[in-house]
Structure formats: C-alpha cells, structure tokens
C-alpha cells in the first residue's frame, strides 16, 4: 500500500507542519516515507503545498501527481488538485473556506469546517490539526497517538505544552469526520 497524499492551502495555514507530522509518524510506525514541499517564492497568503508519501515499499518518486488522498484547505487548491487525483481518492475539504463540492464522481469528499471547529474549541490556529484528525480518522494512514508522540520531534521540546490543545483539536476533527461518514 502506498499513500500518496497532497496537502495544500495558503501559506500560514500550517500545511507543511501537518505534512511533517504525518511523515514523521509514518517513519516511527516503520513505513517508508518522504515529504516534499513546493517551495516557490511563497509567503504567508501565497499557495503552499507538500507531497507526503507513506508506503510499505521504498519510495520512488517523491512527487505526487496521481494522489490517493488530499487535504485541501483553500479553494484554489481544490481547483488545482482535484483533476489529478486517482479514482477512489479521498479528499478532505476545508468547508469553512471552500463553498463548492467535489465535481468528480469517482473521488470521495469529506467536508470539514475546520476553522469553525478550531474557533469553537478556542484556538483558531489549530484548524490544520482539526483537519489532520479528520483525515486520520478516515484514512488511517498513521495513528493519532503516534502523531502526538512525534509532536515535539517536529516542533521542538519547548512546544510540549501545546500537546493537550492539539490532542483536543485532533479529537474534534476525528469526531466530525466520523459523524459525516455515518450520515453519508
């Protein structure tokens, strides 16, 4: 099994960070992994995306063209990455910022209002982690427990105090995704 995941949005939405968390967790769980950022002359507000591969076999191309899953945090990213997805791909759409639904009928969409959920739990900055929680609930690429375990490896020991807030964010994302799956 090879998960080829595209994560995309505006710079500043924490896309690279959730990509690194997923990748690090995959490595800890014994998978072959790679993380490739798109690193154009981008800045806060510009587009940002990264390709994350979590695989049972060694990773060949670190690029993702035909994705098996996508985390889409803003509308331009949906326009860009929807056409390239493999049939059967699962796309996680930030419905706080994206009005439209997925147009293809051969990929599955999950619509998570991550900015609203993050605001409700009192920290707008964890919207990306809410999304990661929803994503992991459905795709099971890595376990949320491993993500929490590698949190300080990615962000540094001095960020350990933020783990409870991030755990809460992941749980809320996971809950919302579960509910949506039941309703679907």
């Amino acid at each position, binding site marked *: 099994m090879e998960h080829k995941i595209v994560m995309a949005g505006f710079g500043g939405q924490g896309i690279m960070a959730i990509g690194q968390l997923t*990748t690090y967790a995959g*490595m800890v769980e014994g998978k072959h992994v*790679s993380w490739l950022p798109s*690193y154009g002359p981008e800045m806060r507000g510009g587009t940002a995306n990264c390709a994350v591969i979590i695989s049972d076999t060694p*990773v*060949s191309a670190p690029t993702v*063209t035909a994705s098996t899953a996508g985390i889409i945090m803003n509308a331009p990213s949906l326009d860009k990455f929807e056409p390239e997805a493999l049939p059967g791909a699962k796309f996680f759409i930030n419905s706080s910022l994206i009005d439209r639904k997925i147009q293809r009928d051969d990929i599955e969409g999950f619509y998570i209002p991550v900015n609203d959920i993050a605001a409700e739990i009192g920290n707008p900055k964890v919207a990306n982690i809410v999304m990661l929680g929803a994503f992991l609930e459905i795709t099971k690429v890595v376990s949320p427990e491993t993500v929490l375990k590698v949190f300080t*490896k990615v962000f540094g020991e001095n960020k350990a105090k933020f783990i409870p807030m991030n755990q809460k964010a992941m749980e809320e994302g996971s809950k919302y995704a579960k509910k949506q799956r039941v309703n679907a």
Partner: protein
Amino acid sequence: MTKVLMKGNEAIGAAAIAAGCKYFFGYPITPQSELPEYMSRELPKIGGVFLQSESEVAAINMVYGASGAGARVMTSSSSPGISLKQEGISYIAAAELPCLICNIMRGGPGLGGIQPSQTDYFQATRGGGNGDYRLLAFAPANIQEMVDLIIEGFDLADIYRNPVMICGDGMLGQMMEPVEFTNHTKRELPEKTWATTGTQGKRKPNIINSLYLEASILEDHNKHLIEKYNKIKENEVRVETVGLEDAQLVFSAYGTTSRIVKSAMTMLQEEGYKVGLIRPITIWPYPYDAFKKINEKCKDILVVEMNTGQMTDDVKIAVEGRQKVHFHGRQGGMIPSPEEIAQVARELLGGK
C-alpha cells in the same frame, strides 16, 4: 543509532560534521540556504568555524586556504553561485587540495529560477573552470545516499587530493526523508605532508601553488593529474543497474529524476513491458562499462533529465552505436511526472 527525519540540506551539514568537517565558508542562495543556516548554528558548538563570506568567490578561496592548511573543509551553493566559484575550483584542482563542494542545482541559465533542476551536469563533469581538470562528482538519489556519499567523499578527497562535488537538485535539498548516521568504515588516510602547517625549522616550507611558468614543468604536472584521474576512473565508478539482461528498453537517469523514472518503470512493468535502468551514482567518472551489459535485443535507451539532455553525450559514448539514444527532459524547474515518462517509453516500445 535510530532514524531521524531530516531535510536534505540539513542532512548535508550533519553528514559533513559526522565526517569531521569543522570549517564551512559560503554565501546563502535558494534552494540550499538551510545548509549554511544549519552550519552557522552547529559548527560553533563543536569549535568549528562558519563564515558567511562577502561573495561566492571569497568563499571558495577561503576553502582553498583552509584546505591548504590541512583542514577538512567544505562549501556549498546553488547553480549561479557554483558558477562564481569555478575559478577557485580550478585553482584547488590544480593545487591538488581536498575539499567538498555541494551544488543543489536550480534552473538556469543565468540567474534562472529557484526550482529543482540538473542543468549543471556539463559543468560538474567537464570541468566548469579553465584548464584540464576533473572533479569526482556524485549524484545521489535520496537523502541517505547523499549522507553516505558525503562522509565517504571527504575521505576520497583526501586520498586523491582532489575536490569532490555532490550534485543534488532543489528537490533533494528541500525534501525530508528518514536518515541514519551509521558507523562508517574508517579508511587509512594519507598524511597531509604537503599542508602549510608551519615548518618549525625542521623542513623546507610547503608551497601551495597553481602557477607553472615553465611549459615542460606544467606538462609534467598535467601528466601527473591525468595519471591520478585515470586511477579515479579505475577505482571509483559507481552505478546502479536494474534489469539489463532482458529489458526491451533501458532508461538512464541520475539523482531524484531516477526515482521518478523508477515510478514510471513500475507502471510499465504492470503493463507487461520489460524495462531496465542504468543510474550513474558517479557522473564523473562515468559508468561507461555498465552500458555493455545491456542485452543485445535491446535497441533503445531513454535518457531522462531535468535539463536539455546533457547526459545524452555520455550515453552515446557509452553505447558505441549499439542502441539508439532518446531523450525526455523538463527544464526551468519543471519536474517530469512518472505518467509522462511512461508515455514516452510506451511510444518507443511500439505501444500507444
């Protein structure tokens, strides 16, 4: 030691320090700036020196000086910055000084762009500076291989008294992969009897120089260098080959492009095609002999690079007319997809 997830550029720094390099001179440029950044943070901790020079020209000449004094030293840059260093590299090669140079290539010519590319193949393999010299040039395909080649590269630089170049592209510098710093076999290294470390009144002064005004003496020096390069060609060629014995089509690619080719190969194999790969790990010395192992029925080689086809020259030399050499490439920082590579291959294989 356990695996850590590291960005390519930082892994270069960590590998250099693991190899005992304590001196870094350089000037920042995207997409390799995380490397000087890493060195500026880490080298002072181990009593080393990080120095951001006023220019690339200054940086390479600081490398010349430090190496001349016997230090294990490196510099790094990306394409336009490596161009600025060429004069110094030629001097270092002429004076036979060991050092390591990293080129995390970006699109060109000129100032070009900041996206990944392999445009400096000619520069790395043909000698980008003046005169008749060669660099030992490695093109790693993943971060672990890059780390291993850097640690070994420093030793090879000492053994051959020659600059070693690590050729990566922006992807390899920017991406993250698991990496392990295992114990590397320690080589017997020659004593640096030539280094300018002070005579203490016990010997004649060592002189590091690349000027030979007497033609016959310079020719002797050239002959000595040729002998050394031949020894490197004999002993240091590295290559990965896949499926040459029954391939209908053989790819040739190096660095990260070879990984995208491998993804294309998996797609083609699933469709029933037999495809092979020759991946040069050293781009100089070039693995010409590997191409002799391609089965006789195979008539086509497909070279894939992120440039306009610079390696096709070497492949044509290698196949000696036995196979037709085709090329597919992307330029300007565009990265080829496995799908487009597979499609070019299908057309050559007579499919649709």
